């Protein structure tokens, strides 16, 4: 039996405090954002009265809040495991949290006091052209909030970059590029370092793109004479947005690489295909974004083709390396069925299955009838709700567990199955809505569409109950810090 809680993962009290801040904040924010999501589905299903003004504010908050929170929780996973291999500064990890919270407050003020409802994508020029619904000032506040959050993540990535370079020499060696074509792959080169390096590279560039387009939008907000090229702004916004949300998966999957082998009791070794998969993903995550612009016919044809082809190929590493590797690791392993293990498998399933509707939608001819319908939230909720979040919950449940735990408690088991069934029903209602051509981001739905919204509301409620159970369990667990995570007596 492998060790679930190795010595080198112990936390000092200061580190534990900061990590707990991340985890508790994430859980609470997830709950709040899910309630906002539920409210939207209730309004669309005509089970609740909500003015369009409020609906679109709620929609903006839900989008920005979920993307931000997913990134926050995922970076906690990355930090926790990466610090075993490279030196990371707790102060920078804390700085990221503080900047995130400042940014989050600005976003909330912009939305609920400034009435900003330009969606989390702040697609130029909507933020500054609301026909008087919200002021330019609140759009500015919103974008400044994003900028501050971006700076926080940039600090975190720079710290991680420094750490990887200190230990491995440069980012290429962290990524294992030297073994792509020849040489003996170091079987002990950590998957965590490979994934983290990819995240560092890709999201630093994503944040750079965001910083360019946000500052340009700010200049335009104040001096409208300086008009931007809307198509170019759209490219940058989707590059930034796509990278930023995708990266939440690549940070959280580190938890799967680290934890799954402990629960199966089997090594999950480093291999050349694994390195190839991550090197390819590094590139593909950056160039796949044109699949958001397939309905912008003015885009060059080669970019649309790139968007479609890369969307398909970027699924291959997930299917044939990560998900397949996980399944191989589990197969006939006499798995230790604890709640983290269950969540890890769920997360792999959510990611792999969620990719199916995503790839199909990225086909240009399909995009003609699916783009900006509920199909789109359908596919990304699939791998966020059933992929990324379970990865994060698995990590949190693992943290509060202990070696001596033998079985899954009744409430956890109940929570798991509620989450799984509620989540599945919820995303399938989105996909079914897409199949029925229901447009995305509509405050009110035609009566014929409302049945999907109503079933979705019920399923969302189920997910929220499940998440509440998780939240209570995890928060209590974090407070009663388990002995296994106490600082080693002779450590330091």
């Amino acid at each position, binding site marked *: 039996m492998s060790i679930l809680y190795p010595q080198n993962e112990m936390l000092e009290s200061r580190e534990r405090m900061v990590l707990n801040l991340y985890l508790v904040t994430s859980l609470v924010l997830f709950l709040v954002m899910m309630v906002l999501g539920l409210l939207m589905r209730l309004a669309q299903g005509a089970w609740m009265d909500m003015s*369009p*003004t409020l609906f*679109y504010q709620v929609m903006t908050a839900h989008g920005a809040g979920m993307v931000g929170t997913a990134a926050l929780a995922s970076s906690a996973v990355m930090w926790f495991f990466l610090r075993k291999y490279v030196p990371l500064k707790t102060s920078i990890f804390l700085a990221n949290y503080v900047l995130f919270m400042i940014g989050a407050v600005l976003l909330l003020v912009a939305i609920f006091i400034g009435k900003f409802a330009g*969606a989390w994508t702040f*697609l130029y*020029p*909507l933020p500054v*052209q609301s*026909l008087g*619904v919200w002021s330019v000032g609140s759009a500015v506040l919103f974008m400044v909030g994003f900028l501050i959050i971006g700076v926080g993540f940039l600090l975190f990535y720079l710290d991680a970059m420094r750490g990887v370079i200190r230990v491995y020499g440069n980012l290429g060696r962290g990524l294992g590029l030297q073994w792509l074509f020849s040489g003996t792959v170091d079987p002990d080169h950590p998957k965590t370092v490979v994934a983290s390096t990819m995240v560092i590279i890709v999201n630093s560039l994503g944040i750079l793109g965001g910083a360019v387009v946000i500052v340009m939008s700010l200049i335009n907000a104040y001096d409208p004479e300086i008009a931007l*090229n*809307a*198509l170019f702004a759209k490219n940058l916004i989707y590059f930034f947005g796509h990278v930023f949300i995708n990266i939440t998966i690549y940070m959280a999957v580190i938890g799967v690489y680290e934890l799954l082998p402990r629960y*199966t009791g089997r*090594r999950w070794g480093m291999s050349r295909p694994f390195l190839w998969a991550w090197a390819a993903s590094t590139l593909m995550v950056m160039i796949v974004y044109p699949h958001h612009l397939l*309905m*912008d*016919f*003015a885009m060059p044809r080669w970019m*649309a*083709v790139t968007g*479609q*082809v890369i969307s*398909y*190929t970027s699924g*291959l590493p997930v299917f*044939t390396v990560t998900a*397949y590797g996980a*399944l*191989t690791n589990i*197969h*006939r*392993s*006499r*798995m230790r069925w604890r709640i983290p293990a269950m969540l890890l*498998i769920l997360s*792999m399933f959510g990611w*792999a*299955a969620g990719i199916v*509707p995503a790839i199909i939608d990225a*086909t*240009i001819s*399909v995009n*003609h*009838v*699916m783009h*900006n*319908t509920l199909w789109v939230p359908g596919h990304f909720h699939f791998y966020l709700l059933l992929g990324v979040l379970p990865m994060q919950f698995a990590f949190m449940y693992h943290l509060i567990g202990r070696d001596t735990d033998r079985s899954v408690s009744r409430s956890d088991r109940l929570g798991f199955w509620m989450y799984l069934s509620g989540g599945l029903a919820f995303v399938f209602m989105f*996909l079914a809505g897409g*199949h*029925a*051509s229901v*447009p*995305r*981001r*509509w*405050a009110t739905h*035609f009566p*014929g*569409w409302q049945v999907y919204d109503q079933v979705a509301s019920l399923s969302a409620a189920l997910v929220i109950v499940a998440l509440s159970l998780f939240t209570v369990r995890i928060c209590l667990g974090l407070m009663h810090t388990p002995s296994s995570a106490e600082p080693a007596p002779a450590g330091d």
Partner: protein
Amino acid sequence: MSFQDRIWLTTLVGIALVTLAFLHVIRQSGREEDPKTVQTRAYALRRWLFGGLIALGIVVTGASLWPFPIASQHGAPMAPQVVHVVGHQWAWQMDTTRVRAGIPVAFEVTSADVNHGFGIYDSTDRLLTQTQSMPGVTNRLVYTFEHPGKYRILCLEYCGLAHHAMIREIDVVDGTEEES
């Protein structure tokens, strides 16, 4: 069977295959076998899986991009009917809302303010095709209506407070009826 139905079916089959793979592995997870044996077998199978997916990708890419599913954007529209569309917050401005069935229509779509989405829906509220409506850019959408009847334009890109109310009806008339 509509295009949407075929997409739906393909997706369900894909998800079902993934689910079966997971269920199979989960069912076997209680047993124990030498990891080496499992790995050797799995890796052999993986080569087939990878090759199969690549082959599938090539076939699907070729079939779905040939002919290219987006009309040429350069030069004068090659369609006998041309409709100029301008998206406004929050209404569609069109130089005509009457087009003929059976004959290609080129919609030249742009926007006067923010991004909109120009989605054509049939009388059963099914999405037929769409393009983006953007300031400073004209996208050309060429579509041939098969049947006469009432169709609707719905906004498919979030554009502010009355996004969901940006609806305009168009009449598609019999192709032979209006020759004059």
